[in-house]
Structures are given as C-alpha cells and as structure tokens.
C-alpha cells in the first residue's frame, strides 16, 4: 500500500522505529507536561510498542531520533509538524493531511491501531486518551469515538446536522461521528488510506468517511464517555465557511455510500464505555435576534436558490416561520430534517454550484440554532439531551422522505 502521506523527512525516522503496536497522533496542545503525563499513563498498557507523533509546528525538518533501544524506549515520542503552520491554508485540507499522515505512519509501522487526539478537554488530564485506546486493543473495536459531555449550546452543527444525519442514514446512535478525537483499527485506517487519493480530486475527508466506512462494513464501533470539549469560539457572523468545510465532505460521502445507507432500517445504539462526565453549565449567550434577522434576510434574498433545492411545502413553512415574532420563533424538527435532506440531495444533483449551495444553507442553520436556543432558554444542559433526541427521531422518521427524493429527484413534488 502506498503511504505517500508521510513527509519525506519523516520516512527515515519511521523506518528506524521499524514496528509499533499503536500510533498516537497528538494534534492538540496538551499543555505543560501533557505528553509526559500521557506517556506515564500509557505505561499501563504494558509492553505495547507505542509511538506518539506529537505535532510540533516548530519541529522543522524531522529530527532523526535515536533508535529505540528496547522496551523502555516506549512510548516513543516523535515530534512532527503534523499540522502545517500556514494560517492562510485550507483548514480542512490541513486536517486531512494530518489524519492521513497518522494513518500512513501507522500503516508503515504495522500498527494494530491508531489514535488521533485533536481536542483539548476541559479540566481533564491527558489520561482520557487511554480511554480511546483501550477498546481498540482490548476488545477489538474498529472505531472508538468520544462522547463528549454536552453543553446545550456547544457543538451545535454536530448535534443538529452531522450526528442525527449519520445516525438516521447509517442506523447507529453515534454522538460525534466526526470525532475529531478517535481511535481506529488497522483494517479501518487501511480502508481509509485505500480510498483516499487527494482531497481535491474526490473530496474524501477521513473524518467524514470514518464512521460511514466502519458502519457500512459492519465494523465494531463504540463510544467512550469523556469530558467537555473546548470548542473554538463560534463566529456566528461567519458561519458559512464552517458549513462548507464540514457538510461538503459529509454530503459527498452520503452520495458515495448510497448503496449502503438505503438498505439500513432502524437505528441501534453502540456500546458506550465509561461514565458520563458532569460539566459546568453553558453560559454562552449568542445574539439570537441577529440570527433570526439573518434568516429573515435569507428568506427574502435567497428564495431563488432555495426554490431550486426545497419543495413548496418547506418554502411555505419557512415563509410562515419568517413572520413569527422572536418569542414564538420555533422551527419544527421535521422541517429542519427535511431541509438537511434536501440540501444533501441538491449537493448530489449539483443543482447549483456546491459551494454556493452550502453557503445558502447558512440562514437556515441560524434559524434552527435560534429556534433551539429560544426553546431551551430556561432549560439546563440535561434538557438539551432530550431535545436533541427528539430531533434525531425526526431525522429517522423522515428518512423515507430522503430515500424517495434520492431515488426519483423530480422537482415537481409537494
């Protein structure tokens, strides 16, 4: 298998290590002593040969490590510029390259599994990373995904689109299908390496493809309870690029896997390991009225595009929604699920430029966020769990809508 994702200067270092049982790619800043604490914790895994690829933007040309002398040399930490320091670069491509590099290094070292850590968790020591590793090595899971402690306004793109969409399509209740922290077995990262050419050529993104690839091949997937993820602050005034970066690869993957998800009926839970972690309450306070105004503006200016994507019934509902005062502003779950499905379909059909299409979804997404936040205004984080469960059920209930539209995408519909 070709492993050309490894930078040339790193090849030599990898070759000196020769072989590893597990490769861990650390893209996140674990803080002072973080790597040391992690290495201490990894000692509990016994004699496993573990290689830690630590992102180090200052690493420059990869230093040639001294050859590991024996068992005591593991975990072996290899500084590596996994994430390119170019701030103007495409962050999706940047992440693609980082994950691909970890997978490729794992393949080169013949690792049984690999793990990528891209988040910083609040009030957590790096020991939580071991929790992602255990199911890979001890119970032969193929994909281990985090179940972050939820705050009601955190990670909403995941909660409102990515998670319920994947759950409905692929039939497994996964809360963070795109990680970004994850563990993958050898057969899974091999599969991803095998399908990935260049991201520009076919839009494959390992984070979007991992869970579908595992589920479509009936691989074993589990979740691990971890703490709350520190999300970068959301710039609500510029949410379009976020939608484009995340939904583009997901919609592409949906197109690629249509033969799989159209067979899936029902929805099953996956094993969840560990105990839920309690977190402090969400104190963020986004400007909801501006979100609603953005939606109203979109409803006025984007009708031409939306009418190419959405059926009259949805457009009619949106029109009614746009007239509601802020306190009554509620987007029905069924409407939102169908909007997402219709955009996925339009993406497949190339109804309009895919970039424009995803950007035109922004006011709709803001409308959902505003509706959700208004509804849960006085509620705690626990209420959001149940609210999002209802949304996920709406996605499931409307899956047949997507299937029928997908199979016969006639625009003359209700």
């Amino acid at each position: 298998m070709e492993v050309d994702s490894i930078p040339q200067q790193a090849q030599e270092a990898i070759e000196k290590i020769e072989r590893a049982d597990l490769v861990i790619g650390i893209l996140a800043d674990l803080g002072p002593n973080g790597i040391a604490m992690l290495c201490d914790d990894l000692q509990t895994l016994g004699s496993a040969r573990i290689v830690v690829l630590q992102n180090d933007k200052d690493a420059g040309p990869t230093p040639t490590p001294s050859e590991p002398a024996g068992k005591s040399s593991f975990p072996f930490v290899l500084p590596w510029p996994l994430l390119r320091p170019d701030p103007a670069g495409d962050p999706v491509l940047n992440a693609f390259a980082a994950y691909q590099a970890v997978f490729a290094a794992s393949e080169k070292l013949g690792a049984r599994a690999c793990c990528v850590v891209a988040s910083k968790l609040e009030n957590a020591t790096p020991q939580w990373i071991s929790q992602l590793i255990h199911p890979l090595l001890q119970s032969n899971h193929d994909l281990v995904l985090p179940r972050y402690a939820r705050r009601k306004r955190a990670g909403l793109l995941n909660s409102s689109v990515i998670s319920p969409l994947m759950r409905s399509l692929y039939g497994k209740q996964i809360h963070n299908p795109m990680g970004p922290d994850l563990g993958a077995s050898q057969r899974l990262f091999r599969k991803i390496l095998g399908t990935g050419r260049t991201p520009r050529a076919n839009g494959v993104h390992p984070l979007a493809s991992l869970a579908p690839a595992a589920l479509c091949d009936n691989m074993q997937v589990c979740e691990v309870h971890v703490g709350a993820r520190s999300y970068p602050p959301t710039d609500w005034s510029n949410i379009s690029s976020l939608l484009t970066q995340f939904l583009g690869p997901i919609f592409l993957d949906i197109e690629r896997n249509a033969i799989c998800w159209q067979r899936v009926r029902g929805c099953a839970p996956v094993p969840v390991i560990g105990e839920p972690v309690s977190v402090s309450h969400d104190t963020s306070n986004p400007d909801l009225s501006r979100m609603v105004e953005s939606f109203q503006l979109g409803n006025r200016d984007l009708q031409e595009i939306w009418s190419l994507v959405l059926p009259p019934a949805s457009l009619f509902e949106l029109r009614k929604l746009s007239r509601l005062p802020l306190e009554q502003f509620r987007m029905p779950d069924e409407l939102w699920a169908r909007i997402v499905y219709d955009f996925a379909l339009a993406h497949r059909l190339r109804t309009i430029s895919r970039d424009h299409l995803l950007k035109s979804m922004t006011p709709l997404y803001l409308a959902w966020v505003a509706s959700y936040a208004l509804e849960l205004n006085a509620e705690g984080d626990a209420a959001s769990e149940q609210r999002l469960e209802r949304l996920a059920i709406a996605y499931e209930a409307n899956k047949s809508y997507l299937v029928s539209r997908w199979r016969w995408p006639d625009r003359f519909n209700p």
Partner: protein
Amino acid sequence: MAKRPGSAADPLWYKDAIIYELHVRAFKDGNGDGIGDFPGLIQKLDYVRDLGATCLWLLPFFPSPLKDDGYDISDYLNVHPMYGTIEDFSNFLDAAHDRDLQVMIELVVNHTSDQHPWFQAARRAPRGSSERDFYVWSDTEEKYKDARIIFTDTERSNWTWDPVAEQYYWHRFFSHQPDLNYDNPIVIEEILKVMRYWLDMGVDALRVDAIPYLVEREGTSCENLPETHNVIKMLRRAIDSDYSGRVILAEANQWPTDVRPYFGDGDECHMAFHFPLMPRIYMALRQEDRLPITDIISQTPEIPETCQWGLFLRNHDELTLEMVTNDERDYMYIAYSADPRMRLNLGIRRRLAPLVDNNRRRIELLNSLLLSFPGTPILYYGDEIGMGDNIYLGDRNGVRTPMQWNADRNAGFSTAIPARLYSPVILDPVWGYEAINVEAQQSDPSSLLSWMRNMIALRKLFRVFGRGRIEFLDPANRKVLAYLRQYDSEQILCVANLSRFAQPVDLDLSKLEGMTPVEMLGYVEFPTIERQPYRLTLAPYSFLWLELQRRVDLSESSAGFTEQTPINAIGGWGDILEGTARLRLETVNLPEYLPKQRWFAGKSRRIKSTRVVDWASLNASQSVLVMIEVLFESGTPDVYFMSLAMTFGDAAEELRRTAPIAIVGPIVSGQASGLLHDGVFDDKACAALFSLIEKNTELDTRHARILGVPSKAFPDVLGVEETPLPVRRGSAEQSNTSILYGDRFILKLFRRQEPGLNPDAEVGRYLTEKTTFNRIPPFAGSIEYAGTADAEPATLAMLQGLVANEGDGWKWTLEELDRYFETYAPVAFPETITDGLKNPVDLSERPTSPLARDHVGIYLDSAATLGRRTAELHLALASPTDDPAFAPEPLTAQDFEALLRDLHQHAVSVFDLLKERVSYLPDEVVEIAATVLSKRRRILDHFNRLRSDNLRTQRIRIHGDYHLGQVLKVRTDFFILDFEGEPARPLAYRRAKHCPLKDVAGMLRSFSYAAHASLINYTARHSEVVARLEPWALLWERSAAAEFLRAYREIAQGSEFLPQSSADFRKLLDFFLLDKALYEVLYEMNSRPAWVHIPLMGILSLQT
C-alpha cells in the same frame, strides 16, 4: 511481479457496470475538423458520468482505411490521426479514470485490414513462410465449404483471390478483412503484444470482436471450435497472470447454449453479449406477449459466478435477426421495417426511438427491461435522448450520425462547416437536432434524458440487478411480464405491461407471504403480500419495480430488539409516558411491538402512530397500566390495554432469551440498561393486578379511575389459600392474555378495549351471582376502567376460578375421533346403516340407532351431556329478570325476515369471492367449490324457503361464539367458557341478544369440523383409507349432532326461546348453520384454503 491493477477497486466491477457505447468519431469534435476526436470526448466525460454510466466502450479508433467503420485495422498500436494521438488517448484514459469511469476498447483480432503491414508482407512472402502464414491461404475456394457467409448482401464467398500471393485468402467478413491465422504461434505472440500494450496503458476491458471465428477446421462450420476456445483461454491466462480487474467481453452472435462455452469454467471471457434476447424484447413488445422473452431466458444456461451477460437494446450494428427463426424474422421485418431501406444483411438498421415510433412509454418500458434483466446493460450513445436515424445513409451509417448536443450549428457536435462533417447531422422536424438534443433535455426535468439518469442511478443502488438470479412468474395474463430478482438479502419484483392498454394481473406470490413490496422509484409501500393472489393494475406500457422488504420480527431473533435505540428511562414512567421519551415509545417502539402480538387485532391494517391516552402506576411505580390508542392509516382507531414494566440487569438478559416477543424496547436509566416490556412477564406486576381485585382497590389514572372489584364468589374460590399466590402465564394466548394464580384463579386481560362491559365478565358475573347455572368457571372479580360518571365502565380484566379439567372439548374430541378412525380404517362401511347418514334433526327426532351407538360409542353420551348443558345455559340466560341487559325479548317473523335479507346479501358476496378465488384453490377442493358455485342459485333460493309467517321465539343473551374449543371436559361433564362472543365483532353486537339456536348451530358446525379435521389428520398418515373412512366420518358427525340436538330439545322443551313447531326449529337452525358455514368459507379462503371444503360440504348438506 505484482499484477497491474485496473482502475476499479472491485474485481467484479463489470457485473454492476452501466456501459455506454460510443464512437469517438461521432461524439464530439474537439478541433473543428468535422470529425469527433479524443480531445472532444474528454470535454464530454462529465456528461457520461452524470448520466450514470460507469464504463465507456469505444468503437475502433485505430489507424484504418475505414472501409468497415474502423473494424479493418491497419495498425493495432496507434490512434487514427483523425481522432488524435496516442497521448490524446492517454489523457482521455486518465480523465475517464478520474471520473471513476472504466474504459473498454476493441480488440479486433479475427482479422485485419488488407492494408495492415502484416497482410502486405504476407501476400509477398513465400508460401509456407511464417510471414505468409499470418493469414489463411488456399489454392482453391473449396476449403471450409461448410462455413456460412455472414455478409450475404455483399460477399459471395469467404475466399478472395489475391493476385500478388496467387492464392485465395480466407475472410469471414468483408473481402478487405483477411482473417488472421491462429494456427501460427507468431500470430498469437503478436496479438498478446497488442493486448499488453493497451492494458499496460490502463485500459480496463477489451471487447473481442468476432470471437467465434478465430480458427478454421475442415468439415466444420468454422465457428465455436475447440481450438478457438484454446486461443481464448490463452489470452485469458495472459491477462490473469499480469493484470487484475481487467475484463474480456466476447462478441459471439450465437445461441445462448453456443455462447456458454465462451465463459469456460470462468477461465475464458468474463462477459458475452446475449444476442438472441434483444430481438425478442422487440418481438414481445409488438406482439404484446411475454412468451418470446421468457422462452429465450429459459433457454439461457447458467454461467459461472464471475461471468456476466452483456445486454443491449441497440448498438452500432443493425438489429441483428440472425438468432431468430425464419418466421420470427419475417414478423420482425413486417413489424419494424416497413421501408426496405431499413433492412441490412439479416437485420434492421434503426435506432431505438424510431423502432418504437418515438413512443416515450415504449422507450421507457424497453429501458426498464434492459436495466432489470440479469446482465450488464449497454447503452448506445444518443439513445438516452431518443435520437433518430437516417436510413438514407449507406451501410450502418444511419445509426452512427453525430451526437446531438444542442440546437446550434451541427448539433453542437463540431464547429466545422456542415459540409466537412464526417456524416450529416439529422435534420428532419421530428428527429432533428433542433428537436432532440442534450442541452434541451438537460434543462427539462421531464425529459427522456432525466428519466434515464434517474433510472440508471436507481439501478446502481441495487446489486441484485447485476448479480442476482431471475425467476419468471406465470400469471394468466400473458401481456404482463413479471419476474423476481434475488441476490443475497435483496429481493425485487419487476412487473411490466407489454400492452398498449391497461392490464390487470394476479400474481401468485404466496411463497413471499408477509413481505412488503416497496415501489422502488418513489419508496412507496404497497400492501403486504398474503397467501391469496396479489392483484396489480398496470397502465399501458407501464412497469413496476418493487423491493420486497421483510418485516423485522423480534420473535425471530433475540438480536432484533438490539437494533432499536434505547428509551431513556432516567425520568421514570412520567418521562416515558409523558416526557421526551414518549415520542419514541409512541412512534417507534409501540408501532413495531404491537403487530407482533397475537392479541393485536389490527394486523391487517398499517399503523400510523400510537398514543398513550391514559395510565396509572401500579405496585409503587414498578409497573404501569396503560391505555394505548392505535391510529391506522385508514379506518377508525383502536384502544388497547397494556401493562408495562421495566427490567434491568440479569433479569433483562433472561427475558431477552426466554420471551423476546414481550419486549417493547431497550431502555437505559443512568448506567443501567434494561428492557421495557409487557408487565405480564413481571411476577410482581401480575401480583399487583390480583391484589387490585382482592383488595377492592381504586387507582387514579391521569384522566379516570381503575377499579378492582371482587365478586361474591371470590372468598369461596380463594378458600384457605393465602395470597400472594404463585404466578404463571397462560400458554394459549390469543385475543386475550391469561395469568394463572396458583391452582385457584385465572386472570384474563382483555387487550382490545371498547367502551362498555366485556360480555365475558358481564355474563360470567350474571350466571355466577344471579342464577343457579354452575357449569362455568366461577366469576371471581374484575378490573374496570371508569371514565366519566355517566359512562359505563370498560372491563380491563376478569378473574375466574380455575377448574380442574382434562383439556378443552376440541382436543378431547379429536383424540376420540383418532381412536374411532383407527378402529374403522380396516372396516368397510356397512350399507345397512345408510339411515345413520341422514339429517341430524331427522335423526334426533327418533331413537338413537343401535348401529350408530355401536360404532360411535360413548361419544354419543358426551354429545348428549353437552346438549343438556347448552340447554341449561340458555334456560338460565332466559330466566326472568329486571336487568335489562339480560331480560329476554321476542324474536318475531318480521325480525327473522330481516335476518334472512342480511344473510342473503352476505351469501352473494361470499359466492362472488369464491368464484374469484376458485382457480387459486388447491386441486383437491376445486371440485367441491365448483359444485357449490354451480348450485349458487338453488342455495340462494333456499333462503326463501326458510321464511315462516308464524315464527315465535326469543332473543336472549347467548354464548355467541360456541364451539368445542369453548368447553372444558371435566370428568364426564363439560364446563362452558369464554362468553366474549366473536372477537372480530363490535362490542355492541357481542352484548346484544340473539336467538339461542345460533349457539346450537355453532356446536353442530364444530362437530362437522372435528370429524373432517380428524379425518385429514388421520389420512395424512394413512392416505390409502380416505375413501373408506369418509362415510364413517359422516356417521360420526351426524350421530353426535343428533344426540346433541335430542338432549338439547328435551331440556329446552317448553321454553319460549325454542320454536314450538319442528318445522320452525329446522328453519331457524338451517339459517344459523348456513350463516356459520358462510363465515367459515370466508375464514378458510383467507387462512387455510385446503380446508375450505369442510364448510362447503356443510352448505351442500343443507340442500340435500
């Protein structure tokens, strides 16, 4: 050395492929010289990809004199300068692969052009030299005389004289295409070099042209020779040793059995065209008869797993009629080529759309067949937009005109002046490029192009089309073609109407009973398949693709329920039944759970949703009592009573193993995972239900109250036992659910709820508390649901005393009958006892025949006992009372007249249905069904004879669903059970008063059923004695019925409900017997067609 992979990841990619055939020359001109080329083709690859094709098949593009459209190759290793350079081809290959398109090119290796350097060298080389022997030479034309001439319009011989070589050279096609000599090993080496050249470049597939003709042998047809197969095997070995994911497609215009060897044992060609199918599709369409298609498919042999048929409707050649009979060919010429110019060689040189008179529905129908038959579909460029042809161009050029891209000059094909085009574009008003072009159809969502794109995308979602096996159905209407495709778990039913008019069809899908067809284009669910014929109505030329989905049955697999998302139960019952978890319970769990329960009466209706309408906690919230409203897609909603409980840990695992049917769904509560399930499977919940009655408890529900009410008999039934009593669950669960408490009580839960008391509890309480009739299990109490103060309460459950018994009357009777048949199986039926076969009423009015008593024996005593108990029951229910629910009412002649009218109407509908279904009944019952139908008028007339002007009898509360299964054998006596009436009837009907002879008729029909059911069972083991035992069965039935009637009439004598005159008694009894038998006919037709003869015989017996 590692094998060089192709561009597709799946080595069997060709089985799922959609192949698009095009000529580089005709597709797109990239340099404005009037001739299509590779740069032009690259511009249009997105179009091919968006259409949904996965593989491009390019007609020959090699250097050539072009006397046969490029099939006369003069250089195998280059590109014709008209089409570009070898670099252009390489660029095209990369561009196609970037779009996930595979590429197939031609390997024309039977012959070369006479301009090929090999031939030019050969004709000049000395005889016997290896150069000369590149081709097949002869001094005479007499060799290989048995080989036919293929191009009969142009060639007179397969030999042509070469003046330079001074010998004849062999050619199976045009004389300018000399055949290569595969007996020369150097030729084979050279061909291998050619093949490797293109495969090394990245070509995915090779279409091997004219494959049957490679080798010649004297005394043979020179087609399909073993030596030819050896050459093919060698080519295949060469590919397999050095390459992976590559394919050979054989062009062999032969019968399927002759093509089959080209697949070898999976070691020759991967694919071969199915030539004979194509003309037969057109024939079937024109004749509006599926036979030509089913006939040729039935002649098509199985092929190795890794092989595939290539299917097509049209291609670059004429619609070949080589593989049809002379008559069929004549028909095809008449039907599809009125103008002789349309004919060429043995075929018709026309495109798809003109062949079917440009009828959109016909085009769609043919494409639906192409896409759903077993094989890989091959589309010919332009047919996806319905392009026309030009029969005024020579040879097959009329179907090779430029692709029509838009309405601009030259159809957007080229920017050259029109005169430079390699071929004129089509210009006429119907077929011209201004009317038919890609651009117009791309902007029209209803265009043929859009339709094709959708259909191709749909086909690609189902591997069954490319990989599955086919099974034709055989409906009576031959204008309808119906077939099943099956691959792994995928099953698809395809139905096509070949007629220009709408057609009905009844499909025998009984082996697929229980499956739900889902129309694949719109994902629309059709009615579930049942045992009886599945009826469809098809619009003209319409087709249906139906995906057959199996309903997930939890009872089949304990893994089933794990596929559901757990309900979050952390908030307790309030959250499950009223909070956020309620949505999942109502919309997902209950709609899946309910249809699997035997007690659920709405199985034939599709559930839309459910709703928790009321509930109450039981036993300190460990379980609940719930009223569930079930909303259906049509019709009125039903309400069901359920008890629900939660179980966690090991107990949940145990339940999962022992009673998966009871599981409503998985639950999680904090860290614990468990199951939400029927509370009947929780002993504590069962004990709490008992306690409700015992302690006369009242529970507040959300909107009403639930009352436990003990009867006066409760203490007597309990006796000295102490509660709580051990709990067991009844095994014979049907429309209700039973819980047993020790050996004292049985609690019956009435699942389907209607407003008002359940008659079982109502009659049980009345008989226990108000009468002296004691041949019923004592009524011990009930649980009632009390809504508003003015509404009558509904019965949720009834508690009765358990009666020690020897089984129900049905089971006991069958055991008796088995012994009876065992005794008389060897004995011829004595002619002397023909009297014993008379009408039971007649028999009951005279003393019991000693012969009947000798043969039927003690069962007659039991029948008499049963008759007596039945009469006593009716007397008790007819006793005077102030209770309006039980006070007898008169039944007059006018009332009876109205009943007769209803029955007449019912009988007409039953006979109509029987007539409709008679051809689907098992052979052994068709005869008696036909007999009944032939006597239909006489039977209906019989109703008139049942009228009675002076009839006087009574309506009283009766059992309502009386048969041997409703009585318990208790030593030498019987106890009567279950006063609920026929469960399918509305509660008001079941609580209404009826003539008691309805019960009498029910029991007589039950005797008849017992006799015949036992006979069926016995003769299943001893088929040789069927005829001998039939009169014995009749003797038993009539004798038992007579004894029952005699005892009944003796006890009931003098009562007001028993008609005074024997004639009126007979008329009333006949009426109810007919009523019951008609009900049974309906039931058996839907459930057990092989048993329908039992009630039919009953109907006939009433006429004799």
